[in-house]
């Protein structure tokens, strides 16, 4: 069964992303077509990118990068659950994406966004561009909804 990772992109102490991701994970498990893993960037705890070479080379020097690479490599597809900050994606998610390259490559990805009036949709549009260099396949329609919490 293909592995679907639902990645909580926000690392804030109080975040809407956690219950939203939990809801989506429960829904995906009940659906039965995927083995579902919930991945929390807060628990992964990546510092700001500190690798000296391009991730395409996979010459990782830091233990946290090796761990992150192992986690992401396990999946066949991704759903990123993320907020919108200042009309864009949040820094923690972009940082986590930038750590790796080949691990994401070619796999389908989608987005579940939240926040403000836009429901995080502007962040989704930016993230679609971010994942394109990997030839990652973003789905045309994300799920998004307005929430007033962070």
């Amino acid at each position, binding site marked *: 069964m293909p592995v679907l990772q639902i990645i909580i992109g926000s690392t804030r102490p109080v975040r809407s992303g956690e219950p939203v991701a939990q809801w989506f994970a429960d829904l995906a498990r009940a659906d039965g077509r995927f083995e579902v893993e919930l991945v929390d960037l807060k628990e992964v705890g990546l510092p700001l990118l500190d690798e000296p070479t391009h991730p395409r080379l996979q010459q990782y020097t830091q233990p946290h990068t090796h761990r992150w690479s192992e986690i992401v490599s396990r999946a066949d597809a991704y*759903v990123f659950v993320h907020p919108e900050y200042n009309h864009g994606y949040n820094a923690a998610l972009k940082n986590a994406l930038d750590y790796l390259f080949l691990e994401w490559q*070619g*796999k*389908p990805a*989608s987005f579940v966004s939240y926040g403000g009036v836009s429901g995080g949709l502007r962040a989704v549009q930016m993230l679609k561009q971010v994942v394109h260099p990997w030839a990652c*396949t973003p*789905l*045309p329609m994300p*799920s998004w909804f307005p*929430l007033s919490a962070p």
Partner: protein
Amino acid sequence: MISDGRFIPTTEITASAHAILDDLDSLVRLWLFNEGRPTLG
């Protein structure tokens, strides 16, 4: 909305989440096929 730490989706949101899973299911089969791990169905 979020109540007692749980996300309560609307019908429309739940429908869009199911649509995401449907699309992912199709695309992941293509990905697995390209990786030499084809699935049935």
